[in-house]
């Protein structure tokens, strides 16, 4: 039997406090450390006594947006992953694996190549359409056949849709150099070089999705008992599935729009959360949110040091950190299919 590290409610709340401290440390660290280190005094001055110096500009235009984006995207991806793993009862579910990232990427590349779109607002819309499209596609493919939707079929459908959209994307990029230049920075998956407006444009939706996800935790707990059991308990499972699906699409679409596709956070973080606090979806969601933000912030900071003065892209960092962790989790038998 698995004993959760944080079994009682006081322990869980205490853990949350630790998370909060780590999150603040991550945010501050992200602002301070880099090719040129600053101090948090300077960082505060940049807002209270802005003097137009290079250092202040870098903090306000580069470092702070980057920290906030990493935090918000990390939390959103982790919560989307936690929702997806709960709803499909599939511990390997992730918005990356389920084709949603690939769909959003394709939509953006398509928009850039065919309609010469390149503004953030357009990227967000495109990303959302692509994510929704692939989400719906995966859902219907996974629901074909006599048993209706099953985790296995959903995963296979996700793999198929990912492969399909990825090859479409590549086909466009190979044949269209202009589009390639427009979206390459974005496709690599990064929280660097984004303006704060990119985040503020989508943040209200992210926040809304976080809150609704938390409010849905109890119905989701019931849904996880199996669809027949949930229906027997009087749950309108169609509604729960539709709403959870919408949240997953919204969260990943917003994330992809800002930072491009970033893998592993949505896959690994919910495991870490469940390992710490057990299977109650309310806690899993809250912890996933915090841990996702923390992980992405630290991955981003670490990426600045490994190849100084160059940087390791955050997508590579999450893979570097996530893959060994995931193998560890699987080998410990914490994941049961």
């Amino acid at each position, binding site marked *: *039997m*698995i004993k959760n590290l944080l079994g009682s409610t006081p322990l869980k709340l205490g853990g949350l406090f630790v998370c909060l401290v780590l999150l603040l440390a991550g945010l501050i660290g992200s602002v301070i450390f880099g090719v040129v280190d600053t101090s948090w005094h300077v960082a505060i001055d940049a807002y209270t006594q802005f003097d137009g110096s290079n250092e202040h500009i870098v903090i306000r235009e580069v470092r702070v947006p980057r920290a906030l984006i990493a935090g918000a995207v990390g939390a959103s991806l982790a919560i989307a992953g936690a929702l997806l793993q709960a709803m499909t009862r599939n511990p390997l579910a992730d918005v990356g694996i389920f084709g949603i990232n690939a769909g959003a990427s394709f939509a953006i590349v398509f928009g850039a190549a065919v309609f010469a779109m390149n503004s953030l607002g357009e990227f967000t819309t495109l990303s959302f359409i692509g994510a929704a499209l692939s989400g719906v596609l995966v859902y219907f493919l996974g629901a074909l056949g006599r048993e209706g939707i099953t985790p296995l079929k959903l995963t296979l459908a996700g793999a198929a849709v990912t492969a399909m959209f990825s090859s479409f994307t590549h086909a466009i990029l190979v044949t269209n150099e202009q589009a390639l230049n427009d979206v390459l920075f974005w496709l690599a998956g990064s929280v660097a070089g984004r303006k704060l407006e990119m985040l503020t444009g989508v943040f209200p939706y992210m926040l809304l999705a976080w809150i609704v996800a938390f409010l849905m935790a109890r119905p989701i707990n019931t849904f996880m008992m*199996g669809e027949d*059991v949930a229906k*027997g308990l*009087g*749950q*309108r499972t169609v509604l729960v599935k539709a709403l959870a699906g919408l949240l997953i699409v919204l969260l990943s679409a917003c994330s992809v729009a800002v930072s491009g596709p970033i893998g592993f956070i949505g896959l690994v973080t919910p495991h870490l959360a469940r390992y710490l606090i*057990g299977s109650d979806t309310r806690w899993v969601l809250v912890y996933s949110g915090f841990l996702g933000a923390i992980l992405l912030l630290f991955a981003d900071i670490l990426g600045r040091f490994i190849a100084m003065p160059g940087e390791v892209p955050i997508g590579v960092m999450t893979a570097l950190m996530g893959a060994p962790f995931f193998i560890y989790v699987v080998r410990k038998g914490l994941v049961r299919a």
Partner: protein
Amino acid sequence: MVALETQNLTLTYGESLIIDQLNLQIPKGKITVLIGSNGCGKSTLLRSMARLLKPKEGNILLDGQAIATTPTKEIAKRLAILPQSPTAPEGLTVQQLVKQGRYPHQNWLKQWTTEDEAMVNEALESTGMTELKDRAVDSLSGGQRQRAWIAMTLAQGTETILLDEPTTYLDMTHQVEVLDILFELNQTQKRTIIMVLHDLNLACRYADHIVALKDKTVYAQGHPTETITPDTVRAVFSMDAEIIPDPIYGTPMCIPYSRGRIGRKGGTQPHAHHVAISTAVGQFA
């Protein structure tokens, strides 16, 4: 008095017809057992009676009220169903599982009351799961797990309880234990229990009413002593059997003929093809 009634009920999966124009009445406050061969549609019928499967045609009435037009949460307060072999999410504790039984009694405003707490404790108590309430469901034995699920169903506090093969995977002791819990509930609280069982002898011992399904409809129904006859068993299970009174309870007991271990003859003469084999063996004796 009728707890559940089906009117011209037709059930299908896609094109294939499973139940055809069935009219069935389930008596209130009694234990009803559905029997029939594998794949004959027992689970399908049970699921439709619990509104988990939409009928192709016909109606289902719960206490005289059509379930198709009753809000699903209302039904959940009056009828509970335990589907065939449910699985709990990993790491879920017995107590968390049983608490889910209170779902239909809660809403956004009314989250968790002392009544909910009392019902959960009572359900844990009557299934003997109180000691194990903090264990993860997936760390329990098959019998304990089944009892945990039954506890969840009981916590729902409904008058009617549907169970699909609640004794599968259980050894003899645990089968009897689970059925005793249900019998007790029926006797002391007059709850209506409808379940699918494969063990005919236990079915006869516990059931007030037996419904035998065959060919998309009811082949026979009634009190076990009237229903479980060699003819019914032959028709429903395509098998020859002796029916003798249970030595302890006097309820019908079904002894199937088979090819394994032929030799000692019972009180009555076996059927023709068995006689041939038995005589052949008898010559060696």
